[in-house]
């Protein structure tokens, strides 16, 4: 992606995040039951959405890398960028979920289905990042990582259903239901929540684009000799 487009993406994320903060803190009212804690609604669900989106894209990119006809290093970079962002957002989902759970459920952690599934997903993809550090040629790392991403991702629905039958306390989905009002989220709160989904998705897209660019530079760097890299840096006028 062109640098200019990435910059526009970054600014769009900043603007929508600022708007989310404004609507979420100033415009929307507190909840009758949850009071001010309801404002986690504009933080926690969109982060969870981005985490699942990230791992889904990483799995799709991994399939495209493993398929010989579509094999490109860009797909490996996309999978890496998505997993790194996904792990970050999954960690934040667990943290914000605990902060929200304490006043609402009276505890920071319960062995609830979705909490447990999310924490497991975090650990699964941490393993992916650890595996990437094993070493080897860029092609070996890419193929090994693509297989690991795929193997981990197909475990996500199995984990989901097994922990769902195991134990559940969590409320039903807040957005992916036939009517938002059925879950008590409506009016300004509903629109602010949807805005937060857009904002966090834009932030995720910007993070992925920046990380892919870094990975491209890193791979470009490993393919060039030290002298060539120094010459390129000197040509930029940056002290090497």
């Amino acid at each position: 992606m062109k640098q200019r487009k990435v910059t526009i993406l970054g600014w769009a994320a900043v603007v929508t995040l600022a708007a989310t903060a404004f609507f979420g803190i100033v415009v929307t009212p507190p909840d009758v039951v949850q009071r001010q804690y309801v404002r986690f609604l504009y933080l926690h669900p969109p982060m969870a959405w981005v985490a699942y989106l990230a791992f889904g894209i990483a799995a799709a990119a991994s399939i495209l890398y493993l398929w010989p006809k579509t094999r490109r290093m860009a797909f490996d970079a996309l999978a890496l960028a998505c997993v790194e962002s996904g792990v970050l957002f999954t960690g934040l989902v667990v943290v914000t979920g605990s902060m929200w759970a304490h006043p609402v459920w009276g505890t920071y952690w319960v062995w609830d289905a979705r909490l447990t599934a999310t924490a497991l997903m975090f650990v699964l993809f941490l393993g992916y990042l650890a595996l990437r550090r094993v070493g080897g040629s860029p092609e070996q790392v890419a193929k090994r990582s693509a297989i690991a991403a795929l193997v981990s991702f197909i475990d996500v629905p199995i984990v989901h259903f097994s922990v769902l039958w195991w134990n559940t306390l969590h409320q039903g989905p807040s957005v992916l239901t036939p009517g938002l009002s059925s879950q008590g989220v409506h009016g300004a709160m509903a629109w602010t929540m949807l805005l937060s989904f857009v904002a966090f998705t834009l932030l995720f897209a910007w993070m992925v684009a920046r990380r892919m660019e870094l990975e491209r530079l890193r791979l470009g760097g490993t393919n060039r000799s030290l002298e060539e890299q120094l010459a390129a840096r000197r040509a930029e006028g940056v002290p090497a």
Partner: protein
Amino acid sequence: MLRDAWAVFAKDLRIEAKTRVGLWQVLPFAVIALVTFAFALGPGKSALSAAAAGMCWVGVAFSSVLVVGRSQGIEREHGVRTAQRLAGIDPAGVFLGKTGAVAVQLAVIEVVLGAGAVGLLGYHVHRLWLLLVASVLATIGLAAVGTIYGALTGAARARETLLPMLVLPIVIPVLIAGVRCWQAASVSSAPRVGEWLSVLGAFAVIYIAAGVVLYGQIEEVQ
């Protein structure tokens, strides 16, 4: 593919029969794990019998890491992997054969731990068919995912730490469903047995299919 699988399966089990690494190292580890859990929980008969199924399956999950590590160690020695490639052995056959050999070793561990649970922890078996079906499905799933990750981490210097980090989180559904089925097998009737068996069955089928499709690519990165 099935002929190659049988050859690899028989080769791995013959090596284990001769070296007895599983018998003298992995099996004692599993038993020690079971006894250690019992010490941690205390001598109360009711607490031990309630936790027996969980203790057994945690022991099996930890042991699976050792069995898989050993299974892949055989491949690294004496250029076995290169010889298999030169002989034109189907990678899917290698995967199925190694998974089968790992599954047999895990089944032996489960029998020993199950006997330990009955003898030491007061676990009762009311529905043997459920115990057997759940154990077979869970073992296949554990062996399949272990063989995939064992091969993926085979070339890593830190494979001893990397393998449990990758395998243990992914087999959590097997652990949950296996424990629930063993608990259900100890009473005359229990809800959701079909759902737990379907989790175990789905896990086994999905990871056997994934291994058959991906093992050729996994061998390329070793």
